[in-house]
């Protein structure tokens, strides 16, 4: 699998949205990625994680204190504006409107999940199309594989965590099995990539 080559660099220029998705075993690497993102990131970031809506979690709050980039829970019909990381609230699917505002949706779980990664990825592919980068991390089910396919078909950039680095490789492997991946990165490479993300987006190669 290729790394960040000239063609990928070309696609990264003009990107408008980063989507991060993880499930079981992915929180630590997600945290490392969020810590690496610059405080003046030129694009908005959506985060979809699987967590149980019945229990209170304050991942957003605990991460905010340690990250340069601001982090919040996505609010209903809020506009996606950089620099900001928006977490999908537990118990709701997160969709994106054509005007780049966020819609929450409480319809049936998909892949037993709400929020479902597939649902948000499909919606992001519909709206942002080729201006999307998606990063799929560790997880114990196949949510995200179909969504990565949608983003790839829309011309976006699909990055998958190297299954060898993932605590649970089911999710990254499912996307790779569908061929819905442009680059596979190790944890260190993911962190470096995110640290330099502004450079990738803003520099024309």
């Amino acid at each position: 699998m290729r790394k960040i080559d000239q063609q990928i660099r070309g696609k990264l220029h003009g990107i408008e949205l980063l989507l991060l998705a993880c499930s079981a075993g992915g929180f630590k690497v997600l945290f490392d990625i969020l810590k690496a993102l610059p405080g003046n990131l030129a694009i908005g970031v959506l985060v979809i994680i699987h967590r149980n809506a019945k229990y209170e979690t304050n991942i957003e709050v605990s991460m905010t204190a340690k990250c340069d980039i601001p982090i919040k829970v996505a609010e209903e019909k809020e506009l996606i504006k950089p620099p900001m990381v928006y977490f999908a609230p537990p118990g709701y699917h997160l969709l994106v409107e054509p005007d780049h505002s966020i819609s929450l949706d409480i319809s049936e779980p998909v892949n037993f999940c709400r929020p479902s990664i597939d649902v948000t990825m499909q919606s992001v592919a519909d709206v942002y199309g080729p201006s999307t980068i998606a990063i799929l991390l560790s997880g114990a089910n196949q949510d995200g594989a179909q969504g990565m396919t949608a983003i790839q078909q829309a011309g976006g950039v699909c990055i998958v965590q190297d299954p060898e680095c993932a605590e649970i490789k089911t999710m990254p492997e499912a996307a790779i099995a569908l061929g819905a991946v442009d680059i596979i990165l190790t944890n260190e490479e993911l962190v470096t990539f995110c640290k330099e993300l502004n450079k990738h987006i803003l520099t024309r190669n």
Partner: protein
Amino acid sequence: MSISFENLEKLIDLVNNVHGFDLNGYSRASLKRRVSRIMDLFHLDFTDIKDNLVNTPGFFNMFLIEVTVNVTEMFRDPTFFIALREEVLPYLATFPYIKVWSAGCSTGEEVYSLVIVLKKQGLYDRSFIYGTDINHNVLEKAKQGIIDLKKMKEYSDNYMQTQADDSFSEYYTARYDAATIHHDLRKNVLFSIHNLVSDGVFNEFQLITCRNVLIYFNPPLQQHVLTLLYESLALFGFLCLGARETLRSDKLKDKFRLVNKKQNIYQKIA
């Protein structure tokens, strides 16, 4: 199969022209997803779906059921029902009668949950609960008060989490694989059609719940519906929205007292 945003607009116009049903204020992202799902389910392309909407009797009704989200539970968000019992009902108990409106009630699970809470607090006999939805079929289901027994297990867990001191099974009769809500719980209840987009105020209420309905509307329609709900409330009546929904405008915020921030419960004060 997937419908483009462009074709979605054409479909919205068609539904309005042919069936007089206005989907214009609905969230496009959700609508796109639901319509694409119908196309997948019935193997229809854009031309087929247009053709069916115009020419196939009954298709529009099915379309409406699939397009609107009818996911509901009894005692969804147990902490909401705790807040209702502890912060709202003591206040409502001082009223001579209590009229309740569950707006967008779907198959009625929330209506019956409200009935159970009112009954537990000894308020049911002077209460009347209206459940409304845009959809005839879901209302018929709501009227029957018959729920899949498997689902009742999950609802029973929810009920326990409301810190109730009795058993959920006291409120229904289980037969084969279905549970029937006790007749007594259905007598002060009325289900009827009401469209939040096009219909107006039809009564004055002491309590209105409209949870997870506004999220499917765009901000202007949300504003319209919130005004309708405000106008339907008696002074000092209560409004309950879904956990992630808001009153939107400052103008409306000034007319309500925030009762419980986390559960999104408001009291009309002006």
